[in-house]
């Protein structure tokens, strides 16, 4: 037994020794200090990007990387929202200032790809065509639908393209909007409606002509129209031509350094739209070298192959570990790039990210866990950033189900929502109570319709037939599997119970199930939010049109859509804002969603980072970011 006592003593002393060693480890410079010295910016970037192909990705985190590698026609301003700086385009202007439907972009002649290949308008045309190609199936292709015939091409609208040529087409094309030209998942299995008229092959069309019952037409459509469409489609299908050949694409290149973009409607803020990475050019020569144009996930985005035109080039990409970019010497403005490189870390765990920052491993975090805000305020007040962000958090209501089919109930729930209490006590992130749907924009009037008014809410609910919450069924509140979502849910649960006497049942689900249930309108209330894609109120409004993918409330209003249509034709920015505001107010009066707050971004920023200014879209142009020790 003695030997074992000895063993025990030895183990103990070993443990002690190792603890001592731990404490007396070498006192070297921290990771961040080293990176600052080397000019490498360390960024928490939440997750591994799906890809670096601007035409395939659809997320915010990808934007951070892609905007360091690629550059669009215009560039964000480092400190001002809604201001465009020259990018690949030196100058840009609408042909007609009064009616900005056609835009000219003059490309800089010295623009080059990182392999030395010159960058011309042809690359842009290739890129536009590529992202719109149906086979590539880009999630974000709709960002280019402003361009003439872009939508028709992307959606392969064969019948429309064929028949609009027909001078004496008997009816307005608008009247055919109920026909399943595209795929319709809800159609019956054996009908061609499921596949969509535009997608039928020649063989299928012949079959359909023989057996018309295979396709269900709305009753309003005359036989003449049907035959005409079928005939033309069949003829085209047999000809072997492509949709591309049919369209009159709005983007053209009068010369290698000029890009002309013709739009469906006037769009004064087109330069803002082109800041989005879907409008970025991709190198035609490099893409085609590694695969077909419409092929996904080819090797062209691999670290050793990627050719780009931004301030940085890809240095290394270790799957799930990091992506690092370094200076691009071929960049047209290379001498003004401040950083030597950026390292993006896919840190999914919010707490880990913050602790890495506290431990001097990051220059900037992607976000800040709400639970740690209090801690950060205490110990890292100087690093804590709290900025407005172009987004609104709201609760969707299912307007197809009792009790939220009644606007008064929706309004009551909205008015009973004590936004401030939730923001101050649960979220603590300096969010602004949402007064409407669209966050504050310069020049755009605040709707100012959403207010906390428990008394009014009670009254409205009683009017709707549920005095004091009597008769209200159990309400299912759908949210995701995050701690914060749960806490917000619990707070609202208590608030609605208190003010309205409503029984809320919180149902948590993982992300895809949550989305699916929302899609299927299988909920009563559902947490949700929307981050603007570009600096215009429209990005918050057009999603509520009937059938828009993000509506998911079952709500629709013809009047609302008419106003939006009117606004899209407006050439004057001020008129346009007035119309959009009118639409927003109409929307809010119906309250299919219960706005809670305008997003704010909370994150931690190292003091050595310069030229990093608050921006509503949080797209910080990499060119200007600088690392400097005080």
């Amino acid at each position, binding site marked *: *037994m003695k*030997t*074992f006592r000895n063993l*025990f003593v030895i*183990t103990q002393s070993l443990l002690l020794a190792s603890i001592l060693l*731990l*404490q007396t*480890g*070498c*006192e*070297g410079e921290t*990771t961040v200090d080293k990176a600052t010295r080397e000019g490498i910016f360390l960024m928490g970037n939440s997750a*591994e990007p*799906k*890809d670096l192909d601007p035409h*395939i990705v*659809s997320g915010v985190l990808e934007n951070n990387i892609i905007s360091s590698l690629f550059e669009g026609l215009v560039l964000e301003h480092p400190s001002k929202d809604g201001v465009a700086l020259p990018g690949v385009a030196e100058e840009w202007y609408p042909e007609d200032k009064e009616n900005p439907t056609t835009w000219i972009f003059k490309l800089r002649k010295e623009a080059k790809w990182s392999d030395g290949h010159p960058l011309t308008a042809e690359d842009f045309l290739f890129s536009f065509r590529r992202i719109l190609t*149906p*086979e*590539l*199936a880009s*999630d*974000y292709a*709709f960002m280019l639908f402003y361009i003439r015939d872009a939508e028709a091409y*992307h*959606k*392969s609208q064969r019948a429309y393209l064929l028949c609009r040529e027909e001078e004496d087409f008997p009816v307005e094309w608008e009247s055919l909007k109920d026909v399943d030209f*595209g*795929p*319709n*998942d809800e159609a019956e299995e054996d009908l061609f409606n499921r596949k969509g008229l535009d997608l039928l092959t020649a063989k299928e069309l012949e079959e359909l002509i023989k057996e018309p019952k295979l396709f269900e037409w709305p009753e309003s459509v005359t036989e003449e129209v049907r035959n005409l469409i079928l005939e033309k489609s069949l003829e085209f299908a047999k000809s072997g031509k492509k949709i591309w050949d049919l369209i009159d694409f709005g983007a053209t290149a009068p010369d290698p350094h000029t890009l002309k973009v013709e739009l469906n409607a006037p769009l004064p803020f087109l330069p803002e739209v082109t800041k989005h990475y879907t409008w970025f050019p991709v190198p035609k020569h490099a893409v085609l070298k590694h695969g077909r144009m419409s092929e*996904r*996930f080819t090797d062209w985005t691999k670290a050793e192959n990627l050719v780009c035109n931004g301030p940085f080039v890809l240095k290394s990409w*270790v*799957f*799930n*570990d990091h992506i690092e970019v370094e200076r691009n010497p071929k960049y047209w403005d290379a001498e003004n790039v401040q950083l030597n490189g950026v390292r993006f*870390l*896919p*840190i*999914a*765990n919010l*707490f*880990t990210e913050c*602790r*890495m920052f*506290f*431990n001097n*491993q990051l220059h900037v975090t992607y976000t800040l866990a709400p639970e740690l805000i209090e801690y950060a305020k205490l110990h890292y007040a100087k690093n804590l950033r709290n900025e407005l962000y172009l987004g609104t958090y709201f609760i969707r209501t299912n307007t197809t189900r009792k009790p939220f089919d009644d606007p008064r109930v929706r309004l009551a729930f909205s008015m009973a929502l004590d936004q401030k209490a939730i923001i101050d006590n649960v979220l603590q992130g300096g969010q602004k109570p949402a007064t409407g749907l669209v966050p504050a924009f310069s020049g755009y009037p605040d709707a100012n319709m959403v207010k906390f008014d428990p008394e009014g809410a009670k009254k409205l609910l009683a009017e709707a037939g549920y005095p004091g919450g009597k008769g209200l069924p159990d309400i299912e509140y759908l949210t995701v599997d995050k701690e914060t979502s749960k806490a917000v849910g619990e707070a609202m649960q208590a608030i609605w119970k208190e003010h309205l006497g409503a029984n809320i049942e919180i149902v948590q689900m*993982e*992300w*895809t*199930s949550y*989305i*699916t249930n929302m*899609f299927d309108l299988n909920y009563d209330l559902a947490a949700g939010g929307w981050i603007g894609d570009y600096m215009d109120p429209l990005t918050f409004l057009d*999603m509520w049109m009937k059938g*828009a*993918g*993000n509506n998911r409330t079952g709500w629709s209003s013809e009047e609302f859509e008419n106003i939006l249509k009117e606004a899209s034709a407006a050439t004057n920015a001020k008129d346009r804002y007035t119309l959009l505001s009118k639409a927003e107010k109409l929307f809010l009066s119906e309250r299919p969603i219960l706005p809670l707050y305008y997003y704010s971004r909370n994150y931690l920023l190292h003091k050595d980072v310069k030229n990093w200014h608050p921006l509503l879209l949080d797209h910080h142009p990499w060119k200007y970011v600088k690392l400097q020790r005080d």
Partner: protein
Amino acid sequence: MIRFIFNRFLQGLLVLFALYTITFFLAKAMPGEPFTSEKNVSEFTKQNLRKLYGLDKSLPEQYFRYPYRVLTQGDFGVSSSKGKPVRDIIANSFPVSLVLGLGALGFAVGIGIPLGILAAIRKNTWVDWGLMGFAMIGICVPAFTIGPLLQILVAANVPWLKVAGWGSPQDFLLPAFTLGLVSAAYLARLTRGGILEILSQDFIRTAHAKGLSPTTVILKHSLRGGLLPSVAYLGPAFAALISGSFIVESIFLVPGMGQHFVNAAVSRDEFLLLGVSMFFGFLIIVMNLFSDILTGVLDPRVRMGKEGA
């Protein structure tokens, strides 16, 4: 022996196929699809995407297509959420998990077994109760608590340890410890029980009668047999360790395989899901076989078949 391995190999194939079948249909039963997105993706785009991944085909066709392509072309499909071939994803992340898992195993064996032996020797004393209580803590305290605690208490105070990240050799210490703790606790308990069982056997008396020191008796005569329960436990446990852990990888930013089990499920990434599940099933089968063989090495009676005894 070869026959035995061959038999188990055949059984393993059947297991894998059954596992594939279950996983495949479970994956199909999940609500949503890989292209479910909060973004405004048109039905048309989704159809094109389905076509791209072969998900537009009929269910039986998809069901047979996957194994066919795996077997004939070694093609495990392309991950819809990561945009990479599943084979590459596993090839990239498994080595990381393997290193981490081996480290965790090292911790588990290095801590668990000696403590188990010590507890067995000091059976029913405060040392024993203390150690077993300690083991119980290891079992009770979940990784999502121990990981952050290590970050706050250890990594923040030790200059050469990072809170998270995977690059330098010392980076694997904290995650491996976190991952291995539960196994260490189980091993300590199993080793204690195993050794106590052996210590009560007659041949230990023989060893004492030979005049051997207690240490020799423990290490040479009781350890081998006493480790058998631990070996049986380690088979599947090792498979679990080296296939990664979502929580540990997420806390310590380790580019391992465990996160794919969760991410693939959440993003309905069918091929990735099938890939990692089948790979895990494969590991389980191999490790079970391995632990059976190791049992045979440790226990010669098993090696020769029970009839010999």
